[in-house]
Every structure is written in C-alpha cells, then in structure tokens.
C-alpha cells in the first residue's frame, strides 16, 4: 500500500513545481513532473498531508494570541506577522515531528555523545506503541467489513479483551511461557465471545449489527466501571478506580528497553503485525476467507453456492472480536499492565473504524494507517502545549479527510487523473 510513504512528509512538503534550469534528461523530468501533478495514490497521500498541514497552520495562527495580534497591524508592518507565523508554524510542526519520528535535540546530544542511541528511538517507539492497539481494532473492523458487516463494536470487544487478559494475568500463577500466552489468548477469547453476540443476533433474529454493537459498546463500558469496583478486580493497594496489576509473568516484554528503559514498544506490536499477516492470509488464502469475501460481496450468491450465511456472520464477528480483544490484551498486558482504568480503552475501537477504512479494509493498509495514527498521537502528545490537543484532533481529521477523498484533493489542486482512474475507498451501505 502506498500509505507507507506518509510518515515522512511533514518535514519538507515537496514543491510540486521543480522548475530547474538545466534539464539533462528532459523526458525524465517531464515524467516526474507529470507524476507529481497526477492524482495517483502516492501523490494524493502526500498532498493530503500538505493540505492538512496548511489548514492546521491557519488554525495555529488563529489560536496563538501573539501571532494573531501581529495580524492586527498587518498593513503597518507585515513582516511581523510573517515572521511570527513562520516561527510559530515551524516550531509547532517541528514539535509534532520530533514527538513522532525524531527529536533533533536528542540527535544533537547523541552526536555530541551525550545521549544514547535508545534516546534517539524514543519518538518512534512511542509512535509504534500508540499504533499497536489501532492495528488490532483496525483489523477487527476491516475483517468484518469484508463479510459485509459494519463492526462498530470494536470498542466493547477491546474492553472485554482487556478484562479477559487482565483476569488471567493476575489470577493465575504460572511460568511466563505459559502465563503470557494464556493471558493473551484469554483476551482474544473474551473479545471473540463478546464480538460474536451481534453476529449471533444478526444470524438468528436479523437484528442489525450496528444497533447491537452500539448498545454492547455502552454496556461493556459500564460493565468495566462496575467490574473495576468489585473486590475481584479492584486494586488491593490503590483506592482509585484501578484494577489489580498483572503478574510479571504475564507482562508483554518490551522490545527495546535494553537500549533505554523508556522505550515502551513491546511484544504486542509483533503480535499485531503477525495478526495482520494472519488476517491477510485468512482473507486471501484460506477457504474461510473465500467464504467471508463471497458473503460480503453477495450473500445471495454465496448462499446459493451452499455457504451458510448465518454461521459466516457469527464466525466473522467472533474473529473480529478476537482481534479487538487482542488489542485489549495488548493494553492490559502491555502499557497498562500496572492496572487498567475506565479510560484505558480510550476510543481505540472507534478510531479502528477510520483506520480500517483508510486502509481500505486491507491488512497491509490497516497497518500503514495505524502507524499514521500512532505517529499523529505520539506527535500530538509531545508537542503540547505548543500545539493544543484540539488542533491535533483537527489535524488528524483533516488528514484523513483528504486521504479518503482523492477527488477533493484533485479538485483543489487541479491534478490530472491518473491512468487507472482515481483510487477511492469503495463505498458500502449498511
């Protein structure tokens, strides 16, 4: 998927017009220029970022009191406004970039021998850490999409996965090679069982999976609040509404903490990528995937060919739930192994919808767009308060908007239609 190129754009937006004087290979320049002005998926992604960051720049200027004030006397001394805006924007975006990819200060210290290599990796580690749950929820939504189901319930599935993994994580006393896999599996099973409910309801009564999923999300969130208050789950030592912490033997090992203890990225990322590969394999190579896709595209033809629709719905939703449940396990046994709270799940399930759609319900695309979201989140977190959190939210929304709407980018920038036509997310009804 082309989306993998996305993360490097913020630093220097490529100038669309390379009007260099000398042209040693005119044909190449022309081809390249043509490529740049064409609405192919790579360029659309790049331009989406550029456009979103332009809009973000305007918001930044508006929100910054000092810079805004320089505009009040713009006609008297325009350079003030210019310099203030330029500095503000450069600083803000550098801050985002530094939080998501590479911190230039750290780089300097590293080159000066003052910081270790691990320090340098921290922004990337954060990006990967935040991307991990999104890979799972994105896959959960994406897989269901392929069967024609709109799994808006990844949030609830993730919550149940979290609880399942947590319970096995603190209540059993086993060696790590047994405990950890069991806890991870418990997350998948809990999420899978919870995810199967809308599937079963749809198969048996026709109840729309969107309604049941929305209801179950709310039920799951409330159930978590209640469960955290019970003596079984509630921390024995802390009075806040936080769960027991999982045993050492069930904590997902970090991958890079030997380089630097603050590198939080853990085994869940590997599991996530494995899950993506597995989902890809499942969809494109297995008979189960064949059936899912057939049912998703045309349930009537699938049924006529002898496939059972109801059981496909149920199993697909269960599989999707298991994926989201793994995401929950990744949280409960990973970054939140010290105990989960009522908002550990954040909105990972809902973001999974955007991740899945942006990744065109394709495992590869889902991983790529989860990385984009992870980078935005990590960048936003570290760039505050220079970049207010709400601006980061807006920035995220605009980036996704443009990427999802190549036709819009094409229209705004007057790009050419590429040979194969525009690649738009395929639309599907309820």
């Amino acid at each position, binding site marked *: 998927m082309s989306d993998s190129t996305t993360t490097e754009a913020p630093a220097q937006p490529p100038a669309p017009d390379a009007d260099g004087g000398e042209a040693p290979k005119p044909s190449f320049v022309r081809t390249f220029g043509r490529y740049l002005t064409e609405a192919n998926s790579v360029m659309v992604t790049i331009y989406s970022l550029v456009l979103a960051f332009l809009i973000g720049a305007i918001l930044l200027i508006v929100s910054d009191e000092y810079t805004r004030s320089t505009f009040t006397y713009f006609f008297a001394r325009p350079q003030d406004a210019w310099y203030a805006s330029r500095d503000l924007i450069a*600083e803000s975006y550098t801050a985002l970039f530094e939080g998501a990819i590479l911190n230039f*200060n750290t780089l300097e210290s590293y080159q000066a021998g003052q910081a270790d290599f691990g320090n340098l990796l921290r922004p990337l580690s954060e990006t990967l850490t935040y991307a991990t749950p999104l890979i799972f929820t994105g896959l959960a939504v994406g897989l269901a999409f392929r069967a024609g189901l709109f799994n808006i319930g990844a949030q609830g599935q993730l919550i149940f996965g979290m609880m399942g993994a947590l319970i096995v994580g603190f209540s059993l006393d086993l060696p790590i090679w047994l405990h950890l896999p069991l806890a991870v599996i418990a997350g998948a099973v809990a999420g899978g069982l919870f995810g199967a409910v809308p599937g079963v309801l749809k198969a048996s009564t026709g109840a729309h999976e969107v309604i049941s999923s929305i209801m179950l999300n709310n039920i799951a969130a409330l159930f978590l609040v209640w469960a955290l208050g019970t003596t079984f789950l509630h921390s024995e030592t802390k009075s*806040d509404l936080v769960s027991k912490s999982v045993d050492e033997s069930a904590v997902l090992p970090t991958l890079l903490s030997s380089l630097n203890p603050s590198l939080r990225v853990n085994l869940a990322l590997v599991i996530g990528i494995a899950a993506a590969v597995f989902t890809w394999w499942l969809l494109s190579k297995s008979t189960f995937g064949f059936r899912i896709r057939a049912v998703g595209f045309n349930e009537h033809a699938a049924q006529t060919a002898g496939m059972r629709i109801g059981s496909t719905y149920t199993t697909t939703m269960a599989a999707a739930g298991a994926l989201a449940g793994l995401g929950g396990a990744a949280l409960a046994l990973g970054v939140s192994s010290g105990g989960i709270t009522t908002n550990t799940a954040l909105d990972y399930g809902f973001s999974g919808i955007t991740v899945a759609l942006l990744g065109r319900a394709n495992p590869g695309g889902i991983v790529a767009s989860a990385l984009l979201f992870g980078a935005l989140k990590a960048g936003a977190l570290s760039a505050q308060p220079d970049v207010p959190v709400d601006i980061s939210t807006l920035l995220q929304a605009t980036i996704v908007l443009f990427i999802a709407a190549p036709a819009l980018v094409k229209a705004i920038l007057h790009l050419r239609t590429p040979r194969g036509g525009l690649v738009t997310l395929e639309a599907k009804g309820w």
Partner: protein
Amino acid sequence: ACGEAPSDSNGGDNADASFSACMVTDSGGIDDKSFNESAWAGMEAAQSENDDIEVSYKESSNTDDYDPNLQASVDDGCDFIVGVGGLMAANVTTAALANTGVGFAIVDGSPSDASGAPVETENVYSIQFDTAQSAFLAGYVAASQTQTGTVATWGGMQIPPVTIFMDGFAEGIAKHNEDKGTDVQLLGWDEAAQTGTFLNSFEDAAAGKSTSDTFISQGADILFPVAGPAGIGALTAAEEAGDAVNAIWVDTDGFESTDYGSKLITSAEKGLANAVRDAVLAAYDGDAGNGTYVGTLANEGVSIAPFHDFDAAVSDETKAELDALQAAIIDGSLVVESPASPVAP
C-alpha cells in the same frame, strides 16, 4: 540521562524565565472544572507572582500517557514537575527516582511503587486534602437549611476524591440530626454501604441535570453534586426548580467560579490552587520539598466558602455551631472519617 541543558526550543511567553515548572494532567485536561483546572490555576498564579517562573502543561488522555508526558517534561528541561491525580503516583515516583535533579509533586497521591506500596523518595512533594472536613461542614449547613428534610448528593464517578466529599457531607448531616434532633434524609449516597448515585461521567452535564431533576422530584431541596463540569447540571436544575431548591458546590467557591452564585448556599472548598502555587514558589526558592502536605481545616487547605447571598438565610445559631464544629475538628476532638481520607503523614 539527567542534567541535560534546558532546551530553548519552546519560545513561550516568559522566554527568558530561568525556572520552568511543568504540569502533567490526568485525563480531563486543564479545563475539567476540577482538580486539573485548579492545579493549573495554581501554576499560573505562581507564574504571575514570579516573573522568573515559566509554566507549561501536558495533557494525558489516559494512564498510558503519564509516562511519556513525564518523560517529555523531563526532556524539556522542566525544573519542577507537578503530576495531578493519585493514579499517577507510581509514574511520578519512578520518574523522580530516575531524575533526582528534578523536583516533583504529586497531587492527591503519595510516592508509591506500581503495586501501590509506599516508596521513600527525596524529591517528591505529596499534596493531599482531607476534604471530608469541609464537606462535613457543608453537610451540616445543608441539614440546617433544608425545608423538605431531604437533601441529595451524587457523584461523577465512584473514586476516592469524589466519595470523600460525599462521606463528609453524610457525616455532617448525621451530626446535625444527632445534635438537633432532626431527621434530614440524604439521597444518593449510603455511607455505610458506600453505594450511591454516580453518572459515570464528569462531562455529561445534561445527565447531571436530569439526575438532579429526579432528586428534586423525590423531595430534595439542596443538591450537592461532586462531579466537576457535570455538576453544573445540578445548578441548572436548581435554577429551573425555582426558589425552593438550592445547591452546594465543591472544590472551589462556586459563587466565584460558576454563574449560579445565587443558588449556592456555600461550597466545600479544596485549596488545590493555593497548595500548588505555594509548592511551585517554594521549589523556585530551592525548597522543592519532599514530604506530604495534607490540606485540612487546620491549615486552611480545605474550608467552607462564605455564604454570600445566603448570609442572611443561615441563622447566627447555625454559624456559631459551625464555628464550634470547625474548632472541634481542628483540635481533634471531632474526627471526620472517610475510607478515602488521606493517610496521616
């Protein structure tokens, strides 16, 4: 990796300030009309009091964000870092142990390890409040002011910083019933069973209003919402219900901080902003502190706000009784206990 030069990458307002105080919020952000907001108010107060202090904050959306935010604050070269919320205690402790050159403070919590066990540190100042004491007085006032004999409280979520208010409130009412032979009922919180009415949200003011309407229809004429911004719903419910229904606010003096002063009999205050301000100023003076501050009636860290518009309505007799109760609490002859009370230092 300690002792890095302060980076000058953030060109803030006090660009030439030499002391940087940073705050890491709990979820909710700095405008949660609750402890994050109060703590930030304290930070800003410190900055306006001393030009040489520059303050900044980082918001956490959940517990997973604490570590990176604390780490980023250290990396940004902060000299003093305030973590808000007991949930962050272990994270602040870990960061403090790793960065002994930086001062830390933890609001509503004390240094502890991941399992919650206390930890010895040299650079963590713990700021806690025994708000049961101020809520106790508020409960006593409520019991003295109710016409219907029924008052109500409800919370945002069943967590210690909330239930401690409700416990104190319940005990204040019980005290009034005992001393004055009244039979004032408290709806919404059963102190013995530790069960009650919670929205499970600090934001949903509309739900707060409808919950309050329900209490009013069940006869309550004084409402005590402990729910940050969602608590505003109780005030609008009281306003719509007319003169008969009033409320008592928490955390700050609601007469100043909300638009519903005329409906507020008093407030059970928690002097968070002052405590944070003092901590930052002390840290600037090189006295970052390593101990526990517990705000009480005695040190005026918690208090009951003035009656403002209700000054005439509250009888002198009641005022005298309140003074006596306050004195009794301060001298220890009256103990207000809540399971959520901070452990005495």
